[in-house]
């Protein structure tokens, strides 16, 4: 029964997405209808997919089904297990919000854009993501992976008149194909050893592969998934592509599409290959630390609201990789229990990031919708015209900064505990890496808090910095409902974490043979513990209630004081120079100035000031200020690489003579060589 309803639910959700895709394409001449079809189909698919995923998460044994295709090595094989269920849940929660949000968001585009095409790409993206998370055949997986990349490309370049958008799309599609190429080679390696492309047939392989093959498989898969996840130094496409997409799409790209990389690592490294060597785990951990710290440092320098959020995705992927790396190391070192806790930390952060990053992108989308700009320097004071958006964004900002009592805090807390436990569990000098990684996580968290003080403070507080934000208005109700749903999810997963933990049990059981939820909860479900008897406990719920209770006497004092001695509104202290205006306000650039100077080794900032004055240099009439930081990776790594590729291609151009005879000769020679190769085997 359970099994039947699971596959039915999966099929229905896929069918909803597919119907939405084709129906909205068919109705492209009637934009209002296409918009409704696109959003309702996505919502229906998400609700069905979400309900199915709950069934999947709780199942101990996977449900698998396969339809042969007649093509060698290829079959429509699906396996719906706890890991698939978990990622489908992480897909369904933001998608439900985004599709409700899109009812209002897309309305603006009616008549200006082809909403039918948008609905087609959007629903097809969701469909392909669902298949990526459930495919059990290498080629099915790769096809779904490719469809994800192509539909995402279509959505990223939806505003294709803009040159910046086209360039970002091109960069995205190039990187997406490099990663698909790596995965193809990785799977080819596995298929070569087994003669089958089914994931199930790879599983006994771990024992068969020799050291070199194992290393090669790890490197190829890691490259492929790391590029997809936007890990530094393969991140350059992410801050380019995510901001230029429509905001509802940005929410999905950052919220869930990059998580396919995390899913892939969990699926291949933990499930299919059944563990990777210890150095590989360390590599994942270190790459995670680097991504987290550099991601947030680059985010701090942004004053484009959506680019800032995109860089935070890199940071959070880094935090997830810290947990995942620790899980890989503990598994090899023979600590399945610790590995399970580390995996819970990583997966919980994956889900949490999917939720609060979608929320923040939707909030940024409302701001963009209302002000028409992504530049924070033109915003300000938006909390007055847009109170609900501001509140939702604030909750998202607290959650992503890892502050208690919301969900971001809980998963970062688990990551800290994992890293601390690693110091005791791993032998040798390398164990010092764990507390060091913990301290870098602390740096990341504190810098993220600084960045979101800037993002929220400059965008929503004080006075408007331009006409665009002076005329701002609140977003339509559907958009607010979408954001409100995610805001609730942030609070619920933080405060109610102890009731949510059993959701990880089947997954950790399947991948590591351990169920940990009962170890992670003490004191009748009130307190989250780190799994070991004496290693640390925390209770977000009690923290939240305690904060509220302790604020009551403070509020009484204030109320009593105000009642007797009054309270009035007055102008801000202007240093005796009357007429304080928005020009006196701190800007986003100024806010991050201190950090720009402290980390100048990394940023290599350049600034240019031109002042025009009449009488004295102390009273300038005009000042022109320009400041920028060096895009290190683009300049030092990718620019030389690009130059190299261009050089090689221009050499190779000599064989491209443009003569059809020459090309026929090439084809013939290639054919002969391939035949010889085949015969020799």
């Amino acid at each position, binding site marked *: 029964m359970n099994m039947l309803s699971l596959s039915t639910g999966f099929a229905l959700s896929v069918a909803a997405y597919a119907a939405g895709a084709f129906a909205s394409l068919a109705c492209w001449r009637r934009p209002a209808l296409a918009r409704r079809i696109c959003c309702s189909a996505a919502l229906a698919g998400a609700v069905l997919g979400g309900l199915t995923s709950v069934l999947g998460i709780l199942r101990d044994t996977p449900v698998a089904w396969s339809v042969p295709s007649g093509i060698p090595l290829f079959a429509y094989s699906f396996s719906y297990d706890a890991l698939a269920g978990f990622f489908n849940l992480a897909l369904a929660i933001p998608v439900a919000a985004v599709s409700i949000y899109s009812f209002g968001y897309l309305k603006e585009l009616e008549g200006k854009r082809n909403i039918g095409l948008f609905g087609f790409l959007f629903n097809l993206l969701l469909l392909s993501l669902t298949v990526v998370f459930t495919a059990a055949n290498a080629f099915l997986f790769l096809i779904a992976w490719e469809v994800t990349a192509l539909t995402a490309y279509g959505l990223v370049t939806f505003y294709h008149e803009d040159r910046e958008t086209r360039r970002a799309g091109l960069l995205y599609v190039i990187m997406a194909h490099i990663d698909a190429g790596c995965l193809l080679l990785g799977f080819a390696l596995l298929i070569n050893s087994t003669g089958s492309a089914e994931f199930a047939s790879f599983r006994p392989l771990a024992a068969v592969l020799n050291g070199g093959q194992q290393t090669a498989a790890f490197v190829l898969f890691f490259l492929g998934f790391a590029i997809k996840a936007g890990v530094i130094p393969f991140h350059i496409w992410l801050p380019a592509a995510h901001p230029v997409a429509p905001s509802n799409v940005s929410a999905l790209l950052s919220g869930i599409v990059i998580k396919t990389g995390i899913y892939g690592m969990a699926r291949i490294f933990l499930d299919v290959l059944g563990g990777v060597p210890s150095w590989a785990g360390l590599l994942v951990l270190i790459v995670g630390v680097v991504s987290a710290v550099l991601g947030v440092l680059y985010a701090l320098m942004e004053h484009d609201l959506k680019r800032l959020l995109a860089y935070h995705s890199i940071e959070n992927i880094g935090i997830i990789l810290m947990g995942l790396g620790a899980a890989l190391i503990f598994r090899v070192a023979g600590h399945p229990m610790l590995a399970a806790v580390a995996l819970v930390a990583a997966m919980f952060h994956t889900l949490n990031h999917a939720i609060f990053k979608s929320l923040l992108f939707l909030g940024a989308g409302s701001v963009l919708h209302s002000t028409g700009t992504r530049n924070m320097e033109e915003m300000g*004071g938006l909390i007055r015209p847009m109170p609900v958006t501001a509140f939702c964004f604030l909750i998202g900002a607290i959650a992503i900064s890892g502050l208690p009592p919301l969900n971001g805090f809980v998963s970062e807390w688990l990551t800290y505990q994992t890293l*601390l436990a690693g110091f*005791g569990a791993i032998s040798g*000098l390398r164990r010092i890496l764990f507390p060091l990684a913990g301290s870098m996580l602390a740096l990341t968290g504190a810098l993220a808090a600084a960045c979101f003080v800037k993002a929220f403070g400059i965008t929503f507080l004080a006075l408007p910095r331009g006409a665009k934000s002076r005329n701002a208005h609140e977003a339509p109700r559907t958009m607010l409902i979408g954001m409100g749903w995610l805001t609730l999810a942030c609070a619920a997963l933080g405060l109610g974490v102890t009731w949510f933990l059993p959701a990880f049990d089947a997954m950790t059981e399947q991948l590591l043979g351990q169920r940990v939820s009962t170890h992670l909860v003490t*004191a009748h479900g009130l307190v989250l513990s780190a799994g*070991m008897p004496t290693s640390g406990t925390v209770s977000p719920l009690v923290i939240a209630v305690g904060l509220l209770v302790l604020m009551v006497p403070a509020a009484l004092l204030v109320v009593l004081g105000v009642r007797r001695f009054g309270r009035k509104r007055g102008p801000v202290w202007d240093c005796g120079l009357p007429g304080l205006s*928005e020009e006196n*306000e701190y800007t986003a650039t*100024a806010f991050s100035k201190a950090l720009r100077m402290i980390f100048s080794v990394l940023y290599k900032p350049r600034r240019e000031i031109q002042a025009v004055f009449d009488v004295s240099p102390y009273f300038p009439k005009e000042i022109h200020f320009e400041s920028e930081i060096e895009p290190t990776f683009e300049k030092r790594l990718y620019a030389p690489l690009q130059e190299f590729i261009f050089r090689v291609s221009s050499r190779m151009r000599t064989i491209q003579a443009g003569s059809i005879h020459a090309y026929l000769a090439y084809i013939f020679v290639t054919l002969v060589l391939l035949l010889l190769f085949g015969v020799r085997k």
Partner: protein
Amino acid sequence: MTEVLINSALQLVLLLLVAPLLSGTIKTLKARLQMRRGPGILQSYRDILKLLRKGMVIPETASWIFSAAPYMVFGTATLVGLMIPMTTTHAPFSLFGGVLAVVYLLALGRFFLALGGLDTGSSFGGLGSSREMTISAIAEPAMMLAIFTVALGANSTNLSEMAKVAVGQSWRFLAPSQMLAFAALFIVLIAETGRIPVDNPATHLELTMIHEAMILEYSGPYLALIEWGASIKQLVLMTLLVNTFFPFGLSSDWTLQTIGVGLAFYLAKLLTLACMIVLVETTNAKLRLFRVPELLMVAFILGALALISTFLF
């Protein structure tokens, strides 16, 4: 349950009362060392009482965030105070949050205060917020490394557990790792409580100010809450230092006598640490803002050395 409630109530009273006394004592000691008479150790109480009986002026530009910040600062500081062992090893809220919760709750208060600074639209507020978030961000890794060194020794991040382990080995602070960790945390304490050489708590009249710039627009009861919260935060951080490294007088029993002895020891230890702070404040000049990271880097390196020396000794 009742025990937790009584313990919480006692500790809450202690927190609310000792915190201003400690600030007042530091001010007086500092004045005496500088050949001034000083305001007297009760001055902080008078300040808070005075502020509570003043009218409030709210900037025209401010939103509800400006009003929320004082409550958050006060609430987080007092809640954190309940998670930390003061007179016995029993912290009433130890089970509900360890040292990580302490650090992150203080960060939550700071997050709101920095937003409150930006909310006024005055450039001072923004300046203060920017500097406060910057300095706390660089202080964080040093703080965590030092705390990890202690937590790894105790195998727990819960402060009561850490205190219990420390009680078992009172002379542990002589170990190199502990001394290095203490030095690192002391520097972080100076930075986090905004003292010379990082920030000058005595003035809001210079452009180098950090904390005072952020709260420049607050007045009346809101300012009282912020000042009170800041002094509680200072007390909490000092308690963290004295009780995890020097567990003298801490008892794991919970009787009237142990509480009394614990209280006497606790106050004496606080006074000693206060003297150290006063000495540092008096003998140093305030650093330029961009020299502060160097100081905090020293703290980070001390923390890393502390961690490494746990291998060696």
